[in-house]
């Protein structure tokens, strides 16, 4: 390892890095703006200047940019000396020439990288006496607030938005001293990662619009490590709360999962805890059909009344934590427990699980995915289903660029040079899908097929890798690209609803492994705990049909809206067979209207829970704040139900941490969930870990109209975290308990490097989460029958679901901003099909009793019709169904969802 001398002292450091990241790794404070650990160096901002000397005799040295200077053996640099410091101070002063003095009203204030760097360089007095430039801001949609005056032109926004995330509608406009970062016209930023600009921008140009309108400074936010409930990826998040409201969600770094970035569903889709109708009190439905709230005593009496001595059945939920589901399963008995999914989805997940367990290919983390040098995506529009995985694939196609760079001995952090070198050369990505996808722009090939044909193609590719001759150019091309790679990756999932497709994906990965490649195989899962449910129910799963015939007298439904999975008729039928329904949920779903007793569950910000991600990684989410009113975590309601039922095995459970060790029995995989985070007895330096930063303003007049007394601090008996600013916030606390990132002098999220051993590597307190599938054994599944080739039918169209990042899942559309982005569901037809039906873009089409607006889309397979999955108006539609289409004669375009705050932006 090379030795470098910094300020007269020698350090042994890693080879291959640049001086900036090396100095930061050594714990030194060196200011920077444009460098980003995930995006490398471009040397644009001139902030990280140091003086480098050629040798011991050199007394003059020269100023170099640390981020652009590779570490070399014997390098001598001066970091804190006057010349370097004066240079850095001057750079900040010139950046501040046009920067407004609006920190007190800026949403970035208090966690602003520019503030931190200004203080760090020692620039205090401004000499500039001229006027400052004023820009007109743009309306950028319901999620992002724009304030161009604050810009310091570091170019991080466009480098992230365009270069890293593949966005096309944000650009650096104009030149010289009036560069402007914005859209060519006002309008919504289209990238699903636009929200990351909030964290990427070193100052307050791009801020979180919901935070701007409901503001709390970072130091006044109470936060706790959480896990995104938006999809199955399991990104780590840091929700921040004040006054019982979720104020914002920030990225929580996990080097194996989400790294530095979240998708916008994750960042903004959690606002439903504020925006959607919630249930605050237990209630019983009276004879008149109305719900009447119950106090604690009445509630307990009702619980006993409802379930004591009764035969119970339960429906769990893939959006509830594993612990609550496990409790419900044990309470009602596995033979009368439904995982919360219909049998079709359950079987597809079991099949994915079996393939992951039995395949010779590795089940990759996102870090592994980014290292893939050839990728095949089967049947998924990943940007819509597992957006963070799509972002990882965008990085994987750059491996060709890194390979070319390595030939020229260019370091991987030389961002501009490598992009210039590679131009359009990318590692191959092949996408097989039913319509266009958001990754098409970086794909080497895309193949538009309906699900059955996708499965047939997959089987042919697998056979071709095994050496079977093929005359199909697509098959050969994909085979050659996968075989040419060292680390080929196959990604599929249940979105297409095809068991044969899952088999095909696994067969390709297995064939690649047999061919000696370090093959990887990954499946997406639809919800945050889908895989946890699959693990929980791998031996026994009661389908909805079997629940009807189970003879149960009471049905307990945990955080599940059955109307999203079953037709109203099926729900009615189930209702008729089971006389008493108890619904536990945080949201006012349609299902609760069928219930006799409704119990208010805590939302994801108010409860501890473990979720198992698509990677099979169990991760723990902690409550950010205690639940208000009579809301209680789902697992606590289930314990109350167990007591009411007199279930002796369950009444002894006290803490959250007792659930899994006691109930998971001999199941080593479920027991592995305990490794996801330290238990409630964990202490750092003998203390609990605070949720509030040390500057938290505990005193507030917010509730002075009710009481002038300080409210008592809530106690957290179930985790090692405290609802307090007191405790140990050591930098080496376990990653799973990292409740906020802050370091002296580093108030912004850039302080993260103080928590990493290596920049961009694992946190000092490890990566967080526990991979469960590595210890799982499962029988192999019988291969699904190979489907018939698709043939179009006269007068009938094959429905193919299209997923939307906003709108296709249950939760994101309950938040105001994402609901606006979701808009309304559309139907998609090939131009020729639309013409044959006499339909034009924007016309209404009737199918299966619903009317949808038509979008004409040349990527739709002729003879098939795409529809937006998961929208209220399309819940009755199923992928793979044949339907007739007809013109909706008296159809009128439904009104657009109105922008909540367009005027506020102007």
């Amino acid at each position, binding site marked *: 390892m090379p030795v470098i001398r910094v300020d007269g002292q020698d350090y042994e450091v890693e080879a291959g890095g640049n001086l900036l990241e090396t100095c930061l790794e050594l714990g030194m404070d060196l200011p920077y703006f444009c460098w980003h650990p995930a995006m490398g160096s471009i040397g644009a901002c001139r902030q990280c200047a140091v003086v480098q000397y050629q040798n011991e005799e050199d007394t003059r040295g020269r100023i170099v940019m640390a981020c652009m200077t590779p570490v070399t053996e014997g390098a001598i640099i001066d970091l804190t000396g006057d010349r370097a410091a004066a240079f850095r101070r001057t750079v900040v002063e010139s950046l501040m020439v046009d920067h407004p003095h609006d920190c007190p009203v800026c949403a970035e204030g208090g966690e602003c990288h520019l503030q931190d760097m200004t203080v760090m360089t020692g620039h205090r007095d401004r000499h500039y006496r001229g006027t400052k430039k004023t820009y007109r801001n743009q309306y950028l949609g319901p999620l992002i607030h724009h304030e161009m005056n604050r810009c310091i032109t570091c170019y991080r926004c466009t480098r992230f938005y365009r270069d890293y995330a593949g966005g*096309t*509608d*944000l*650009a*650096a*406009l*104009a*030149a010289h001293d009036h560069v*402007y970062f914005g*859209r*060519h*016209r006002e309008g919504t930023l*289209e990238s699903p990662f636009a929200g990351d600009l909030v964290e990427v921008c070193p100052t307050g140009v791009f801020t979180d619009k919901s935070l701007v309108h409901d503001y709390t400074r970072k130091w006044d936010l109470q936060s706790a490590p959480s896990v995104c409930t938006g999809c199955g990826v399991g990104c780590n998040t840091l929700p921040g709360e004040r006054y019982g409201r979720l104020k914002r969600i920030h990225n929580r770094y996990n080097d194996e999962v989400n790294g530095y970035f979240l998708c916008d569903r994750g960042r903004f889709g959690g606002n439903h805890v504020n925006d959607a109708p919630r249930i605050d009190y237990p209630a019983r439905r009276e004879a008149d059909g109305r719900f009447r709230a119950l106090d604690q005593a009445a509630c307990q009496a009702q619980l006993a009344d409802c379930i004591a001595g009764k035969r119970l059945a339960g429906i769990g939920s893939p959006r509830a934590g594993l612990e609550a589901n496990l409790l419900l399963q044990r309470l009602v008995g596995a033979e009368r427990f439904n995982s919360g999914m219909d049998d079709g989805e359950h079987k597809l997940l079991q099949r994915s699980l079996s393939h992951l367990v039995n395949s010779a290919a590795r089940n990759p983390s996102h870090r592994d995915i980014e290292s893939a040098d050839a990728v095949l995506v089967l049947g998924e529009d990943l940007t819509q289903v597992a957006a963070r995985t799509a972002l990882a694939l965008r990085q994987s196609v750059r491996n060709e660029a890194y390979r070319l760079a390595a030939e020229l001995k260019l370091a991987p952090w030389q961002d501009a040079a490598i992009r210039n070198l590679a131009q359009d050369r990318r590692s191959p990505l092949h996408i097989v899908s039913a319509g*266009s996808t*958001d990754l*098409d*722009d970086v794909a080497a090939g895309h193949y538009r097929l309906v699900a059955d044909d996708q499965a047939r193609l997959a089987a042919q590719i697998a056979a071709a890798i095994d050496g079977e001759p093929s005359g199909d150019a697509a098959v050969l091309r994909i085979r050659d690209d996968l075989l040419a790679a060292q680390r080929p990756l196959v990604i599929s999932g249940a979105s297409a609803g095809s068991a044969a497709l899952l088999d095909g994906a696994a067969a390709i990965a297995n064939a690649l492994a047999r061919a000696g490649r370090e093959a990887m195989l990954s499946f997406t899962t639809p919800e945050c705990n889908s895989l946890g449910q699959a693990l929980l129910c791998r031996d026994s799963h009661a389908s909805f049909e079997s629940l009807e015939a189970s003879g149960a007298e009471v049905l307990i439904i945990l955080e599940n809206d059955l109307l999203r999975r079953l037709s109203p008729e099926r729900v009615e039928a189930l209702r008729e067979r089971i006389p008493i329904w108890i619904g536990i949920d945080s949201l006012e779903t349609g299902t609760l209207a069928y219930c006799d007793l409704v119990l208010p569950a805590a939302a994801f910000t108010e409860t501890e829970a473990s979720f198992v991600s698509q990677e099979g990684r169990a991760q723990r989410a902690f409550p950010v704040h205690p639940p208000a009113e009579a809301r209680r975590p789902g697992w606590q309601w289930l314990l109350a139900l167990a007591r009411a039922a007199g279930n002796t095995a369950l009444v002894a459970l006290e803490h959250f941490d007792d659930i899994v060790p006691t109930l998971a029995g001999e199941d080593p995989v479920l027991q592995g969930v305990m490794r996801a985070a330290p238990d409630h007895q964990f202490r750092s330096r003998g203390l609990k870990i605070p949720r509030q930063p040390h500057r938290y303003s505990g005193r507030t007049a917010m509730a002075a109209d009710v009481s002038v007394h300080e409210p008592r601090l809530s106690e957290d008996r179930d985790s090692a975290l405290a609802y307090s600013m007191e405790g140990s916030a050591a930098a080496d606390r376990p990653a799973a308990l990292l409740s906020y990132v802050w370091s002296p002098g580093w108030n912004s999220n850039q302080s993260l490097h103080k928590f990493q051993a290596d920049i961009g590597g694992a946190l000092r307190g490890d990566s967080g989460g526990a991979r469960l599938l590595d210890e799982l054994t499962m029988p192999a599944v019988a291969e699904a029958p190979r489907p018939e080739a698709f043939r179009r039918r006269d007068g009938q169209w094959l429905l193919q679901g299209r997923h939307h990042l906003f709108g296709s899942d249950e939760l994101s559309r309950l938040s105001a901003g994402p609901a606006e982005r979701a808009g309304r569901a559309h139907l998609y037809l090939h131009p020729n099909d639309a013409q044959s039906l006499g339909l034009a*873009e924007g016309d209404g089409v009737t199918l299966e009793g619903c009317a949808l607006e038509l979008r004409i*889309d040349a*990527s739709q397979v002729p003879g098939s019709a795409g529809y937006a999955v998961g929208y209220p108006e399309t819940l009755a539609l199923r992928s793979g169904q044949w339907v007739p289409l007809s013109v909706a004669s008296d159809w009128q375009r439904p009104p657009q969802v109105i922008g909540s705050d367009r005027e506020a932006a102007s």
Partner: protein
Amino acid sequence: MSEQLHSLPAETLTLSDAELAEIDAEIAHAPYRAAVAIDALKIVQAHRRWVSDDCLEALAAYLEMPPAELEGIATFYNLIFRQPVGEKVILVCNSVSCWIKGCEGIRAAVTEHLGIEPGQTTSDGRFTLLPITCLGACDRAPVMMVGDNKFEDVTVERIPAILEQDEGATPG
């Protein structure tokens, strides 16, 4: 990018056949369509005097590039006009040589003669006055351009004749 193109309004402005023919001629020499962006912007401007938002979007679609990227190029160059200009654009150089030789007086004379400040267009739509940094003839400072004609060694007295009759123009 396909999404971008899809989201264009149905009745979008189309470029004229003459413009498209000239742009096609450029594309024939280029490795990919977006490579001719600068030339295409100049062609559109030659036909329309300036590049409107609608033109920019239509051109971006034709060149198969995101409008934001084309806007970045269009606004980088100060002689691609993104707002309407008069029949002739007056460019008065204000860089060092011309400043030493009294360009401020030249600019004031133009303003007095036409009644427009820099950035404005005469009410009859004939002239737009703009400042510019260097016209490449510093040895002949002060220098200005009116339309396609360049005028060197300009004096305040010559301004009316330059503006009305293009008197004393040197080939640009």
